[in-house]
């Protein structure tokens, strides 16, 4: 399978990349890790006339902490995220999620920016970013703007990014002490997209009361979904089995999975409930240092 012909550009600066996007309009696409885009081009689901490879632009790959915010450059590869000590320190969820994304070779190429910009509810980072209350930075000819993760995903393969914008950074607030996070997805085999996936980050006080919580769901809705009622079932409440059961029930009711090769709608709803329970418990255990 070979993609349809296209022109290949590899700009060396952001300004050049944005100028090329503006020049070629809808005919152009950004190439990051290429591990969603190239498969689609091989199947001719995507037929861009211009491919703008941003891998040669320096300064887009980093993971650092600045003033209470962790900043991840869009070109950071999954393998770098998997092995980052800074991310391990603040967010155990990244070790959970990266291990479940595809396989080592794909993780050597795929980037976190591409994973989000692809706008696919089957990808795992969107739900994680919802749990972590992340902000996406988009850069265009007029400068950069911040997009809260809840305003980023629009529809099937569409995001808030404008045609002439490049996703350059992801910002995640460093959580206070007493915070834990966890992700798991049910998959048919290693490297598969999720049958259902659940991301949770929560903060507890000394009495076991939930002070902050984010819950994101993978591949059980046309777009990545925040489980709002589940969050409310736990926020300000003691994390006990009764409240967790309620949160699990709400998530299974509020998602909109479609039946496919991975399972029926009923099965997926049931699995969402199971995963919400397990991930809330795991995040709470991590929050309490267990």
């Amino acid at each position: 399978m070979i993609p349809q012909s296209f022109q290949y550009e590899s700009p060396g600066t952001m300004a050049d990349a944005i100028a090329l996007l503006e020049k070629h309009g809808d005919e152009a696409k950004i190439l990051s890790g290429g591990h969603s885009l190239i498969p689609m081009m091989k199947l001719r689901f995507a037929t861009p006339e211009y491919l703008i490879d941003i891998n040669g632009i320096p300064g887009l790959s980093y993971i650092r902490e600045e003033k209470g915010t962790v900043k991840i450059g869009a070109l950071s590869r999954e393998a770098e995220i998997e092995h980052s000590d800074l991310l391990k320190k603040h967010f155990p969820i990244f070790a959970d999620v990266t291990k479940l994304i595809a396989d080592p070779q794909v993780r050597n190429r795929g980037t976190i920016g591409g994973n989000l910009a692809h706008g696919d509810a089957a990808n795992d980072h969107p739900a994680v970013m919802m749990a972590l209350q992340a902000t996406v930075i988009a850069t265009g000819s007029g400068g950069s703007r911040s997009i809260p993760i809840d305003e980023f995903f629009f529809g099937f393969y569409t995001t808030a990014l404008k045609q002439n914008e490049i996703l350059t950074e992801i910002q995640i607030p460093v959580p206070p002490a007493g915070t834990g996070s966890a992700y798991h997805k049910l998959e048919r085999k290693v490297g598969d997209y999720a049958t259902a996936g659940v991301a949770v980050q929560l903060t507890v006080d000394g009495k076991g009361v939930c002070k902050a919580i984010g819950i994101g769901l993978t591949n059980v809705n046309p777009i990545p979904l925040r489980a709002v009622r589940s969050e409310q079932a736990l926020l300000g409440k003691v994390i006990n089995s009764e409240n967790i059961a309620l949160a699990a029930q709400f998530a299974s009711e509020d998602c909109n999975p479609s039946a496919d090769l991975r399972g029926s709608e009923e099965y997926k709803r049931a699995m969402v409930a199971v995963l919400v329970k397990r991930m809330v418990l795991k995040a709470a255990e991590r929050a309490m240092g267990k």
Partner: protein
Amino acid sequence: MNKVITVTVNGVQQVLEVEPRTLLVHMIREILNLTGTHIGCDTSSCGACTILLDGKSVKSCTILAVQANGKSITTIEGISTEGELNPIQEGFKENHGLHCGFCTPGMIMRITELLKDNPDPTEEEIRWGISGNLCRCTGYNNIVKAVLYASAKMRGVPTASTEPEFV
């Protein structure tokens, strides 16, 4: 418009002209005639096309040849010296790590990076480490043994079991 690229292939610099849509695996097999790199699925799943790009194991069916410009690639043809098997190849031979051999070049390239990053992996780490490579013949057990053998040999400790399992 074709592009002229410079790639170091198994240590030798090559200047090649490619179409932008040429996949790296096609450049390797059809332009360079290095047919040890296989195409198993063509959908980024099986790992048969795995090579090293600047030392990182990647699936060459999902990378454009133009993306290798200025980089170095290593294929299965480039890992042994003077016709001697390297420790990973020897591990496969000693432990019956292959039957038909179709997956083997990709496996070995992936394992090359795995052992570089983690010279003494556990069995579980090996299984996760080769989770992007499918083998339809061996049932993986003898491949895991081959990696343990290679790891021991490369670290200079007595080599692990050479008793292959037949399942």
